[in-house]
């Protein structure tokens, strides 16, 4: 589904990603871990098409098509979803209207007929229940005045509405208490199936208790320095990154 080859990217002339190689197949869950400043969020942003970052070399193929020339909204319509670490507040635009516009674009790109108003309402209610989002948030302005947990739930709600092929969840667990974490993680697990793939970027192993990864990658200084299975995340939780970094710096 996603093939990243020797990807280099920089911001304001400073190189952050220094040769990322990654292959994600349909149905897989990949976790990306690593110390602060290792480039995890940059990787997520670059894949989504954030124009603040410049890709200096390398290639990214999504479903066999080159991704890097495509605009951020084109990538989204193809089925790439970024769950934001800090979801943005959009005053004056209701969640329902926001999703109506987004779902319409996604369906058009997929060659599907637009939903009728009642079909759309039904879909929204159904997905809100699926991810445990109180339906009262549907008529409120996007993320405005939402608590940290509600904002993250709203991200997962949007993911449920858009049914992406590839979801990139950037520190979805940050700022969540144990209960909110469980709800959000359970939502993600419900949405995962054989047909889609998920990249989970996280600092903590605890999220991976719910969203069990097929692969765990450690990012350090813009490169993947170690790949393992879920056991690697457990080892990192106990021992930290020092042993890996020492090996790498040698």
């Amino acid at each position, binding site marked *: 589904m996603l093939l990243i080859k020797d990807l280099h990217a920089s911001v304001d002339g400073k190189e952050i990603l220094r040769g990322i190689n990654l292959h994600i197949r349909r149905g897989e869950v990949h976790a990306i871990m690593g110390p602060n400043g290792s480039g995890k969020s940059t990787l997520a942003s670059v894949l989504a098409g954030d124009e603040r970052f410049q890709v200096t070399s390398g290639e990214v193929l999504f479903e066999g098509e080159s991704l890097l020339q495509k605009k951020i909204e084109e990538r*989204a319509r193809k089925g790439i979803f970024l769950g934001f670490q800090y979801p*943005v*507040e959009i005053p*004056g635009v209701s969640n329902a*209207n926001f999703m109506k516009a*987004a779902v319409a674009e996604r369906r058009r790109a997929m060659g599907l007929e637009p939903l009728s108003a009642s079909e759309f309402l039904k879909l929204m209610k159904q997905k809100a229940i699926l991810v445990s989002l109180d339906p009262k948030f549907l008529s409120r302005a996007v993320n405005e005045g939402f608590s940290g947990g509600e904002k993250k739930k709203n991200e997962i709600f949007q993911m449920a509405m858009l049914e992406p092929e590839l979801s990139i969840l950037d520190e979805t667990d940050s700022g969540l208490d144990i209960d909110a974490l469980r709800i959000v993680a359970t939502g993600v697990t419900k949405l995962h199936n054989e047909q889609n793939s998920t990249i989970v970027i996280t600092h903590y192993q605890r999220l991976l208790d719910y969203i069990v990864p097929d692969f765990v990658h450690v990012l350090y200084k813009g490169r993947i320095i170690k790949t393992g299975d879920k056991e690697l995340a457990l080892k990192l939780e106990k021992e930290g990154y020092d042993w890996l970094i020492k090996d790498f710096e040698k």
Partner: protein
Amino acid sequence: MLTQEYIATLRKLRSGKLPQKGNQLFFSRMPSTLNLQVERLDTLRKAIFLFDESRFSSVDIYLEQGAAMDIYLIQTSSSAVSLNIHQQQDSVSHIFLSQSASGKTNIEVELLGLGAQHTCEGFFITSGEENSSINLAVKHLSSDTTSSTLIRGVGMDHSSARFHGLVYVNKNTKHVDASQLSQNIALDDARILSEPQLEIYADDVKCSHGSTVGKLSEQALGYMRQRGISLQKARNMLIEGFLKDTMKNYSIPELMEQNEILIGGKLNFSDDVQR
């Protein structure tokens, strides 16, 4: 420039087919001068003024003791409007302003009687080469008077707009509470000049004012695009949301719908110019 749907509704409005209630007064094809008096303790009146022809009109509204009125000013043509409101004791005025064309609006509110209250909420949106100006002067001439103003503006293309707001508090008045907020978004090569002004000659006054001219949030645009919404559509949704906030207290919902259609028409027109 205006959508067919909007033109059709304007016709409806003119012919009085909009839900007419006994207390609702509708004025279009404005005469050059008009005087309205709202009797003592008459609190149910609503007046809609539609300025859709290029001419000058002057309107004076007298609110007697304890009277209240919602006043809708809808300006869709390059007209010049002068609205003067004279308020006696405990009267309440609420202006809803919508200006979507080149034009001049001068509003002066005199809070003459004790405890008179005034609220003004409104927006302007300019596109193409339009040039619009709004002057709003609120004069607190008696004690215990309050006023609150929120004007939001959006400028697009090469248009220019100017908002000038004055809060005047007379000497020897007490317990005056006045606030004035002007928030604006200037897009493309548009220019918006926002000039708030305070003239306060009394001590026992609570007064706040704010004025901003900014751009649309890049963060919000990026977030919306990541959900598959085009930059143009995201921009339009943010502008509509920004302006809609000034309509949340409308007592005639049909007018809110009309304004939304009107804003949509302006945005589409601007999109065509951009392309």
